[in-house]
C-alpha cells in the first residue's frame, strides 16, 4: 500500500512539474528575459562619419563606407555593444526600433560634420532636438557631441560649434512652442519638457574618425562615463 501511495504521489507531482517546465520554457523563449546589455548608441545626421567611427573602434581599421541603411552592432572591449544607427531621414524607424529593444543605453554619441556647419546648422539642431527628446524618454543622461571631420579644411573648432548649436537649439525650442499640433497629439507638457531637455549635459569634443586624431579623447570620455 505504501509503495502504491508513493508512486501515485510521484505521478501526481510530475504532471504539474512538467507543465510548469513547459510553460516556463514557453515564456522564456517568448519574452527572452535576459539581462539588458549595456550599449552606446551612435546617432547624428547623414554623412557625419558614424559608420567610420564605428569601424575605427570595433575593427581598429579605416574602412571605406557608403550611406548606411541599417544599423551596425558589435561588441566592443568585450562588454559593451556599440550600435551605429543610420542617419538618413528615411531610416528613422530603425532608431525607434533599436531604442525599444532591451539595451541598457549608457550614453549616446551624437556625431556631426564640423566642416559643413554653416550649411547644416538647422538640420543638426533639429536632429539634436530629436535625440534629446528620445534621451529624456529613455532616461539617458549623457550625450557626447563628437565634432567629426576635424581634419578637413573648413572644420570649426569645438567651442565655436558648441555656441552655434546651443543657440540653434534655443531657436528651435522657441519655434516648437509655436508649432501646430500633430494629428495625434502626444501628452507632452511643453513647459516641463523644455527645462528637462536643457538639463541634459552635452559635451563637445573635436576629432576625426577617418584619421584617428583625438580618437583617444573620445574613447576616454566614453569609458569614463560607463
Amino acid at each position, binding site marked *: 500500500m505504501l509503495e502504491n501511495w508513493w508512486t501515485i504521489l510521484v505521478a501526481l507531482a510530475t504532471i504539474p512539474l512538467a507543465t510548469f517546465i513547459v*510553460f516556463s*520554457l*514557453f515564456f522564456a*523563449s*517568448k519574452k527572452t528575459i535576459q539581462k539588458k546589455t549595456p550599449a552606446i548608441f551612435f546617432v547624428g545626421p547623414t554623412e557625419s562619419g558614424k*559608420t567610420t567611427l564605428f*569601424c575605427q573602434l570595433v*575593427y581598429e*581599421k579605416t*574602412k*571605406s*563606407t*557608403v*550611406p*548606411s*541603411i*541599417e*544599423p*551596425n*552592432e558589435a561588441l566592443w572591449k568585450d562588454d559593451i555593444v556599440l550600435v*551605429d544607427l*543610420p542617419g*538618413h*531621414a*528615411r*531610416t*528613422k*524607424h530603425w532608431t525607434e526600433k533599436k531604442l525599444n529593444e532591451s539595451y541598457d543605453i549608457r550614453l549616446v554619441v551624437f556625431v556631426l560634420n564640423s566642416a559643413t556647419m554653416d550649411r547644416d546648422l*538647422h538640420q543638426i539642431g*533639429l536632429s539634436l532636438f530629436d535625440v534629446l527628446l528620445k534621451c529624456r524618454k529613455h532616461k539617458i543622461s549623457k550625450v557626447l557631441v563628437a565634432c567629426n571631420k576635424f581634419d578637413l579644411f573648413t572644420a570649426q573648432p569645438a567651442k565655436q560649434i558648441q555656441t552655434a548649436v546651443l543657440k540653434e537649439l534655443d*531657436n528651435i525650442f522657441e*519655434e516648437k512652442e*509655436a*508649432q*501646430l*499640433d*500633430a*494629428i*495625434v497629439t502626444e501628452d507632452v507638457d511643453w513647459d516641463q519638457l523644455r527645462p528637462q531637455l536643457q538639463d541634459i549635459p552635452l559635451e563637445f569634443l573635436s576629432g576625426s574618425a577617418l584619421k584617428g586624431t583625438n580618437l583617444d579623447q573620445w574613447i576616454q570620455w566614453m569609458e569614463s562615463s560607463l
Partner: protein
Amino acid sequence: MLDLFAVTTKGGIVLWKTSDSAACQKCLQVLFYEAFLSERRNVENSFHQGRFTIQFQESIQNSIVFVVAFQDAKAEAFTQTLLNSMHNVFINLFQEQLQKKKLPTESDILNNFVPLYNAKLAQLSKVSEKEKNNVQETTLLEKPKAPSREKSRNKAHASRQAPPTSKKGKKELRKWDDQLTSEEQEALNYSGKTPDVAPTSSQLSNVIGDTNFQKTKKGDVVIGDLEADPNQNPSATSSTAFSFFSGLIGGKYLKEDDLDPVLKKVQEHLIQKNVANSISLELCKSVKKSLIGKKVGSFESVKQTVNAAFRETLTQILTPSTSLDLLHSIRAVQKNEDRPYTISLIGVNGVGKSTTLAKLAYWLLSNNFRILVAACDTFRSGAIEQLGVHVRNLQSLKGSSIELFAQGYGKDSSFVVKNAVEYAKKNNFDVILIDTAGRRHNDQRLMGSLEKFTKATKLDKIFQVAEALVGTDSLAQAKHFQASLYHRPLDGFIISKVDTVGKLVGVMVGMVYSVRVPIVFVGVGQMYSDLRTLSVDWVVDQLMK
C-alpha cells in the same frame, strides 16, 4: 570592361571593392541614395550616374549588397550573371560568419573570394566575345523551334556554351541551348513550384478558395484582423501556448507561393482604404521583392511579416526626407532677404483652398506675422467676398495684422499677384497667402494660365490642396499639377476634409508615391483651428487596421 565591383553591407561598410577611384565611390553613394533612400521605393535594378550604369543585387537575409558599375555597354550582357554567381559564391564561402552576424575579414575575402571573382570575370569576358559570333547562328536555329516551346518563360537571348566547372562553391553556368534537358530545367527553376505546373498556379489556388490555407501547416495564412474570415478561426487558436512546439523546429524562408495570397489580401484591403489600384499593385510588388527569401521568425506568421513590411514601406513613403519648417523658413527670409514670404495654394475646384488659406492665416497670425491675403481667384463669383469674410473674422479674432488685397474680377491673376507683392513690400507684410482659382487638371488652357501665374513672381511655397474624398483621380491631379510647374517642384500637399473619410485615407499614399512630394498639412474640419501636421504613424495605423 567593368569599372567597379563592390560588396557592401547594408550597415554601410564596404567589404571589398575593385576600384578606389572617386568616381566609383560616387557611383556607390548614388546607388544607395537612389535605390534605398529615395522617396519612391524603386523596383528597378539599374541606375545611372554620369556615364556609368550601376546595377546591384541584394542578399536580403544577410543584409549584403553586391554592386557593379560600368561604362562599357558590352559589359551589360554578363553583369547579371556575374552578380548572381558572385552572390552565391560569397554566401556559400562566408555562411557561418554571416549567420553569426560577424563580418568576414579583409584577408579572408582577399584569399578566398577574390581569386574566384577574377576567374569568373575572365571567363565571362571571354565568353561574351565568343557569343557575339554564336548569336547569328543560333537565332536562325531558334526561330522554327520557338512555337513548339511550351515554356514561355525560357527566353533565350543568346546561347552560351561554357564548360561546367566543378570548383567547390562555384555556381555552374547555365546552358542555354536550343533544347534544355529536364535536369537543366530543374536547375533553372528557382521557385518552389515544379516546372510542370503552369505559372498561374498561385492564381489558381486563389480561385479554388481558402480551403488551401487550412491544409498547409506552418505556412498557414492567418489573416485575422484584415478581414473577418470565418475560416480562420480554428487556426487562430493555434497561435497560443502549444504553437511553440512547431516554433521550436525553426524559422522558415519565405517563398513566392507563401507570399502571394497574403499580398493579394493586403492589396484588396488597401484598395478598400481608397489607395489607387496602380499604387497598391506597385506597393505589393516592392514589398514582395523585399520579402522573398527572408527568414520568418519562429513565432511570426507570414501575415505578420507581410504586415510589418507594409507598415515599413508605407512609413518610408509617407515620411518626408526633409522636414518642412515653415516658421523657420519665413523667419529666415525675413532676416536675410527682407521681403514678404509668398505661399500659394492651387488645386481643383472645391477642395477647400480658401478655407485652408484661412486656417493657415489663423495659425500664422498666432505667431505674430503680418499677413496679406491676395485674392488671385478672379474667376469665381464670390471668391473675393468669401476671403473678405474670413479676413474680417480673423481681424476680429486676432487684431489688424491681416489684410485683404483684391483687384476685382476678370483680371489676369499674374497681374494681381505682382501688385500684391509690391503692396506687401511697401507696407511691411511678412507673409502673403495667395488664393488661386480652382481648375480642372485636364484643362490645358487653365493649366497653362497656372504656369504663367507661377512664373510671374517668386513664390516661396506652392502647396496643392486635395481632398481626401477624391478617388483615383488624385494621382492624375498630382501629376498634372506637378507637370504644369515643371520649372520647380510642388512643395507639398495639403489634404483637406480628412475628418469626413475616417479610416479611408489612402489618397495620401497615392499622391505622395506618384510625384514624390510630401504632405505638409492635413485639414480636419471647417473651423480655423482644424489644421494639423501629418502624423505618419497615425496614417499607417489607419491604413493597416
